[in-house]
């Protein structure tokens, strides 16, 4: 599909908006519909679209497989790291109240945001890795 100009241009225009929308879903998540899962999938779908149009080779230049799988691991670390942080700060695991020493509610917002960020990273990473692996299978053979 690399020679189809309309698709190429449309993709170029669309991709940033998809990514942006993913971020919107992510940051809106703690007081509206949305959250890390959805955001992660949408974020990944941006890259999937890009890959479909521009080919795996190009996509891997933008986002190497290594980085994607790194994201998958990193997200879990962010998530668990928040939990550990709350424990160090004196609360129970994932008790966000302790994240902000002045205002428990601020702590809640911060906590949920960070955790969802972890989820986003992981879901995005894993989705891309899955897609790369399946898409790259034919090449490998």
């Amino acid at each position, binding site marked *: 599909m690399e020679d189809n100009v309309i698709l190429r241009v449309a993709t170029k225009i669309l991709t940033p908006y998809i990514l942006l929308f993913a971020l919107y879903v992510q940051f809106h998540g703690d007081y*509206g*519909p949305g959250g890390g*899962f959805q955001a992660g999938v949408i974020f990944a779908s941006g890259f999937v679209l890009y890959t479909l149009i521009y080919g795996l080779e190009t996509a891997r230049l933008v986002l190497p497989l290594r980085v994607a799988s790194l994201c998958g691991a990193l997200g879990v670390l962010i998530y668990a790291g928040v939990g550990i942080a709350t424990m160090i700060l004196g609360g129970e695991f994932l008790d966000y109240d302790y994240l902000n020493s002045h205002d428990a509610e601020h702590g809640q917002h911060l906590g949920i945001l960070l955790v969802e960020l972890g989820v986003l990273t992981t*879901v995005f990473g*894993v989705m891309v890795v*899955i897609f790369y692996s*399946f898409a790259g*299978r034919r090449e490998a*053979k």
Partner: protein
Amino acid sequence: MNAVGFLNYWFVVVLMMIGFYILIAQGNLVKKIIGLNIFQTSVFILYISMGKIEGATAPILNSNWSVYSNPLPHVLILTAIVVGVATSALGLSLVVRIHEAYGSVEEDQINEMDRSV
């Protein structure tokens, strides 16, 4: 209570049986995964529909509404969906590997090859 009152459950049961049937009857490994997916989807519907309360709105705080649907099943099933995706991905990747190793994704052919070894 009449049968129509349980409409969502009827859908669930029908879907579940379709999925389950594919899972059992199909010899094609990919189709089995599809069957599994349908099977799991029926459970998603079961959960989501049970959170619905008649006359209630989406669980977003709004001063015009006082009755909200139960958000908890949605959250639960979000997790289950993710699990389902992971299962499908893993299952399909296994199928790809099996195809590379055996050159087939038909169960009976694979069994035949295993037996002849």
